[in-house]
């Protein structure tokens, strides 16, 4: 092994990355863990409370409801984005200008910022002037306030998220589909497999690693949903759309409970860490 002449040389070279990592990642996590052991309202000096913040979260059921809600939201987003992305990939896996235009159009939603997407859908769903309201009105259905009802708000937010990330899922599935040799599909045709059998026995088994990857990444994306909630519902009505990251935001910037927020952050960190670990493990299996 080659040894550096001066110990300072490699340190210099690593410094930019190292500084970024410490300032924006390691230090915040450390601070969050530390602060989760205090009760602090940003105004008076912090008081050490030990694990009281965690216990309070568990006792109040807050943690249970936020986690459950987020998991439900994730389930809708992951299943929606995957099935829609796969269907679009199967439909659009063709040559020609028209198909490449539609592919780009679908993918373009993924490139737009979350806030812009949220605002766009806020307008579309506006109960007075939105397109959806107009359409419902024309169809004879009275005004439906999709974002103002606890039963509909979460599916609607999930729908918006699916709308945005389906392009990503589609591109991933297209890559997977194009990696399947044409010969294999042709052999299946000659072997007597119709379109459905070809998908079930040949294409889907070969797409499974891709599906695993798309599934885990969109799970992580959906777990981190914040902008959509912040812009479209602010967690309401009656907290029905308070997802994990928004709950953290709410408790620190609205309720000024830094300790509770930090405790939530630590739990969230652990959850995401395990999700990422799962993802990396599946990725390795794929390789």
């Amino acid at each position, binding site marked *: 092994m080659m040894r550096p002449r001066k110990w300072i040389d490699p340190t210099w070279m690593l410094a930019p990355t190292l500084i970024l990592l410490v300032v924006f990642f390691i230090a915040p996590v450390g601070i969050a863990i530390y602060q989760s052991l205090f009760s602090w309202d940003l105004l008076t000096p912090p008081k050490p409370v030990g694990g009281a913040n965690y216990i309070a979260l568990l006792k109040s059921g807050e943690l249970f409801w936020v986690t459950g809600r987020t998991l439900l939201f994730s389930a809708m987003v992951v299943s929606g984005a995957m099935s829609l992305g796969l269907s679009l990939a199967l439909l659009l896996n063709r040559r020609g200008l028209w198909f490449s235009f539609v592919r780009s159009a679908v993918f373009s939603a993924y490139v737009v910022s979350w806030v812009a997407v949220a605002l766009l859908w806020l307008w579309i769903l506006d109960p007075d002037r939105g397109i959806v309201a107009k359409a419902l009105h024309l169809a004879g259905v009275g005004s439906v306030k999709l974002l103002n009802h606890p039963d509909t708000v979460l599916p609607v937010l999930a729908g918006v998220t699916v709308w945005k990330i389906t392009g990503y899922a589609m591109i991933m599935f297209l890559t997977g589909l194009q990696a399947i040799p044409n010969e294999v599909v042709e*052999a299946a045709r000659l072997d007597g497999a119709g379109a459905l059998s070809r998908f079930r026995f*040949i294409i889907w*088994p070969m797409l499974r690693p891709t599906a695993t990857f798309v599934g885990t990444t969109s799970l992580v994306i959906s777990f981190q949903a914040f902008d959509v909630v912040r812009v479209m519902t602010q967690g309401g009505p009656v907290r029905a759309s308070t997802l994990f990251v928004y709950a953290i935001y709410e408790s620190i910037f609205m309720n000024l409970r830094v300790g509770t927020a930090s405790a939530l952050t630590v739990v969230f960190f652990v959850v995401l860490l395990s999700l990422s670990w799962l993802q990396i493990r599946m990725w390795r299996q794929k390789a």
Partner: protein
Amino acid sequence: MPEVSLQGLVKKFTLGNHLALKDVSLDVEAGEFVALVGPSGCGKSTTLRILAGLEEADAGDIFLGDVRVNDVPPDQRDIAMVFQGYALYPTMTVRENMSFPLRMRKVKAPEAEERVDTAATLLKIGNLLDRRPHQLSGGERQRVAMGRAIVRNPRVFLFDEPLSNLDAALRTELRVEIAELVRKLGRTALYVTHDQAEAMTMADRIAVMHQGVVQSYASPRDTYERPATAFVAGFLGNPRMNLLDASVQGRMVRASPFAFEWSGADTVRKVGLRPEELGLADRGIEAKVIGLEPLGAETHVRVEANGQILVLRVRGFAKHRVGDKVHLSPSPAHFHAFDENGDRVEERA
């Protein structure tokens, strides 16, 4: 009645409006093994794919027996195909791969198993049945692909360059096996290859294709000894036939450095001579050795005579060296004559 009959096939490719097949007609008798050879892009694979039903012809008819199958989907044509890349299903075991066509045709499990076992024994892959394709060597994969074709017991086998991904030794071994197997099963086969050795050794008849046209369709021996066109003459044979520009003057054909008496038509524009028919002699036309390729059993000798470069083949190692003077004296009987379209011209008896 031929088992397979292709009549006037035309295939356009949308890209650049290029004609892949101009007018391809081919009859294959039942039990016959036909090789389609030609350079890349000559249309041989396209012909096979149209017969399989994987592509549609823009014009022309495809008959299997007396049934026109242009509109019959590929799985109902009773044709099995072996692909160049083997096209095995990577997520299935060998057994599952081989039984897949039977499963799709709703053959009962015990019968399917029996047919897979029979085919596996025939191909000597009985010990591989529980492996997956990525655990097999190239030769083993090709056997499995063959097995998947055999279990269906199809009327016609199609092979699309099945050996071109394998190394030379394995190719030689497998080409013998494939030809024997197909004959043993008594089935009709069309075999696409760019390897002339495969075509010569395996086929009952060879169709040589060039630029979307069948240039010649005859037995390997006839194709070699009496090539129908100058292209066929140049394509088959290694080293290639010496092809020389020629002109007819009275009763003489002049093709520098040769001139010989000729009793045929005066339309001769090219003359060909196989390297093995261009013997070295003590007298005759003087030539200079400019290159030697010793291959062991034979040596390819490149000579220059009257500004013309010729290749000839001698047995064993040549005793000549580069720069040596030699003499050529080919027999006029060995010359092949072609007209300005490249078509063969026969001498009048």
